């Protein structure tokens, strides 16, 4: 049975008059009994309409005039059970019209033939699918205009009905939950595409302008705007009930995706002529190669991924080496066609990367979860780093001139945004701490300086002073013009990713 109540009647009337199909009526009446939705669309509608004519408070008892009596048994007989066509007088005609709420998706596109078509498309690409993966039909979005009441989620109903399909059931013998394999089913409806656009003018602060071609009207933005807009304003911009659609939805091609795989590790950079990410200005490549491309190359081909997103716990300049245990990084591999690798295979991948170039080295390579990315980024803000720098002094120095350096502890440094990054960063003063330093004399104009500093300290500017905009600075401390000739990162003190024993 449908689990509709007498109190639902006025709503049902309104919804049917507005042009909703049977299943959408059930959704808006918050019917939680899933089997109700799995009845065929014709039966659904019939039962809904029948609700309107029940007179007593007991939904099982009817006092209908005989001409309108529908036999329960016939209705429950199953999908194609002979349903009597309802007489037209007072009932709204809903069956042949396209539903104003689901645009036909819950009417036509849930039937056997469509489902089979989707499955066949999937199987065509993955012939062994029935042996390995569960199909997870992705939720897709449909903005339901004009009706702002709580309803059962649209996508859930779609899935419920699809999963009934016997064709599908026969392929679900091997189920691997959360396999990461996604089948995307979608629909377009050109007629109603522009319906939500008025929200951009009424609630402009909910919509962020996008640089690429992607639509401004994301699900999140539209939902936010719908929550914000007052009922009156909404109604003055959009008809309620909505206009009956003249066309049905068009199904989009079924797309198959694998959820991203995340690979993490630590990298060393041994070259002083290698940027971390590609260096491109005005479309022109300024320097060949980059750390991310050297790491991504072998990974992209082994995982057969479509693309990648590289991120790391901070970064270093082109001319700075990264030594010691290296800097943590994580790479998101997009739509990998192969996603499962055992430890030995990952070790092999690491070897491949390391032998492909002498400019970088990778260690502790491992597959991690998306959540792990957060751990890495926290290192960027909070953890300390150690550096070694080659310093030149204008004034000639002796060993003793450097003695004071090892006694400096927890030195607070105020750094105005360095001029070399000021074109793309806000102007501000940042206070940072240099925890400790030590110096080794080399000759009368050179020494090696080791520093242990707070994350986010600009070392080069601490040394030469950046036109006096970093204070204190090494020039002032040594009372001489000094400059930094070379810089190396000795350690990035983040204890992630976990070490992988070689």
């Amino acid at each position, binding site marked *: 049975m449908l689990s509709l109540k007498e109190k639902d009647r006025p709503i049902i009337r309104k919804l049917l008059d507005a042009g909703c199909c049977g299943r959408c009526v059930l959704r808006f009446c918050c019917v939680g009994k899933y089997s109700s939705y799995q009845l065929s669309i014709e039966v659904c509608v019939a039962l809904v309409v029948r609700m309107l004519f029940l007179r007593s408070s007991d939904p099982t008892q009817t006092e209908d005039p005989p001409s309108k009596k529908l036999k329960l048994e016939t209705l429950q007989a199953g999908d194609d059970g002979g349903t009597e066509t309802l007489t037209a007088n007072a009932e709204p005609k809903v069956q042949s019209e396209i539903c104003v709420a689901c645009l036909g998706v819950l009417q036509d596109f849930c039937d056997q033939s469509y489902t089979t078509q989707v499955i066949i498309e999937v199987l065509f690409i993955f012939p062994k699918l029935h042996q390995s993966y569960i199909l997870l039909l992705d939720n897709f979005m449909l903005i339901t205009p004009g009706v702002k009441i709580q309803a059962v989620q649209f996508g859930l109903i779609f899935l419920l009905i699809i999963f009934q399909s016997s064709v599908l059931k026969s392929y679900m013998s091997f189920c691997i939950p959360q396999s990461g394999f996604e089948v995307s089913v979608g629909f377009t409806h050109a007629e109603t595409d522009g319906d939500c656009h008025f929200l951009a003018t009424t609630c402009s602060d909910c919509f962020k302008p996008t640089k690429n071609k992607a639509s401004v009207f994301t699900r999140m933005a539209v939902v936010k705007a719908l929550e914000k807009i007052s009922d009156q304003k909404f109604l003055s911009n959009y008809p309620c009930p909505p206009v009956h659609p003249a066309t049905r939805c068009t199904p989009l091609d079924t797309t198959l995706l694998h959820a991203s795989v995340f690979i993490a590790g630590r990298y060393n950079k041994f070259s002083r002529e290698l940027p971390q990410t590609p260096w491109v200005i005005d479309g022109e490549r300024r320097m060949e190669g980059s750390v991310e491309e050297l790491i991504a190359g072998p990974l992209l081909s082994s995982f057969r991924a479509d693309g990648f997103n590289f991120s790391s716990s901070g970064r270093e300049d082109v001319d700075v080496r990264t030594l010691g245990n290296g800097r943590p990084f994580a790479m998101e591999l997009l739509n990998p066609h192969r996603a499962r690798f055992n430890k030995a295979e990952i070790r092999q991948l690491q070897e491949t990367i390391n032998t492909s170039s002498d400019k970088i080295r990778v260690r502790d390579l491992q597959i991690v979860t998306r959540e792990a990315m957060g751990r890495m980024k926290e290192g960027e803000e909070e953890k300390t780093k150690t550096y070694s720098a080659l310093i030149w002094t204008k004034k000639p120095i002796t060993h003793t001139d450097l003695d004071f350096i090892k006694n400096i502890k927890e030195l607070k440094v105020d750094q105005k945004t360095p001029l070399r990054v000021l074109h793309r960063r806000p102007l501000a003063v940042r206070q940072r701490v240099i925890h400790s330093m030590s110096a080794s004399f080399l000759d009368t104009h*050179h020494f090696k300086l080791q520093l242990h500093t707070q994350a986010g300290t600009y070392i080069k500017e601490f040394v030469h002073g950046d*036109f*006096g905009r970093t204070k204190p600075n090494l020039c002032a401390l040594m009372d001489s013009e000094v*400059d930094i000739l*070379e810089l190396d990162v000795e350690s990035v003190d983040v204890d992630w990713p976990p070490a992988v024993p070689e």
Partner: protein
Amino acid sequence: CVFAMEEADKTAPSVTDRYYTRWYKTDMKGKPCEDHCILQHSNRICLITLAETHPILQNGRKIKNINYKISDGCSRLNNKVSGKSKRGGQFLTEFAPLCRITCTDNMEYTVFSCIRGRLLEVNEDILKHPDLLLEKPSTDGYIAVILPKLEESKSITNGLLTREQYEEVVSKRTSQQQEPC
């Protein structure tokens, strides 16, 4: 590789040499020898400084006062920028005054922007320590930081002299035996 630096160091390029191009504006507003030096970073940010031939830096002059208030309605100290795009910074043209400097011999000089762009900051350290301007005019004693518009970043130097051209102008002055400024 570390120690190879020793010989090169006698003429080792400084930070300024490595990252900045020097441009000059001589005899600003027709005033003899009032030369400005603009340090242009490869990222298009410019530092306005006094060139070594500027009168303030000659004859052991001392500074009595530096004033960033250039008119009743405008003080460069009120310049506030916010965000990455540096909104709120005063937009300057070539002849916009940055500050007025009075020396102990009561000579007054105005330092000008020399380029078009948005004022990011003026050097407040020289207010507290005017000697910085005399001792390190090309580094710690800079006057202001200006960000030209992206589309103008190449053209702003059209009205300026290169280092070589500047040196020519200066040598012509001494050969014409002008009074030192």
